[in-house]
């Protein structure tokens, strides 16, 4: 398991968590997207 893909928030990796935070701030109705995109999920 690499550190880069470690789940850090609600099963999301770093990319997913950043995407989630940005979407909550900028476009809330789409904040579910990181949870269904494979590259946003952590191990």
């Amino acid at each position, binding site marked *: 398991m690499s550190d880069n893909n470690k789940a*850090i928030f609600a099963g999301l990796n770093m990319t997913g968590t950043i995407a989630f*935070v940005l979407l909550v*701030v900028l*476009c809330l109705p789409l904040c579910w997207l990181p949870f269904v995109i*494979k*590259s946003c999920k952590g191990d």
Partner: protein
Amino acid sequence: MQRRLGQLAIEGLRLSACGLFAVWCLWNALWLVERQIPPALFCALTGLPCPTTGGTRSIACLLRGEWAESLRANALAIPIALLLALTLACLAGRLLAGRPLRLGGRFLTAWGAVLAVAWIAKLLGDRQYW
């Protein structure tokens, strides 16, 4: 040292995500208690539009055949709507096939690109439509 900074960044991000979510819940609850539709938190705090601001107006104008007005309200409303439809169709297809709800990384790229262009277009557009 670098590893420790990395851990601190992760903790900071985790706390930001939790804090932001709590603030958002509180914000919406306060508006709903007043029986009003909550405005976008970002718009209310900064006065700036979000990437999808004007999307509903844009589609309504398009349905009335007012192309120019539709583009002014949100130039990327149609690409966003199409990408949303594609995303939901892919998820529905996987759900019906009994497969896990997971989409490829291309969706992240596509959404990132569409929302970034939409936001830039919105910020550079007519302030009357913010």
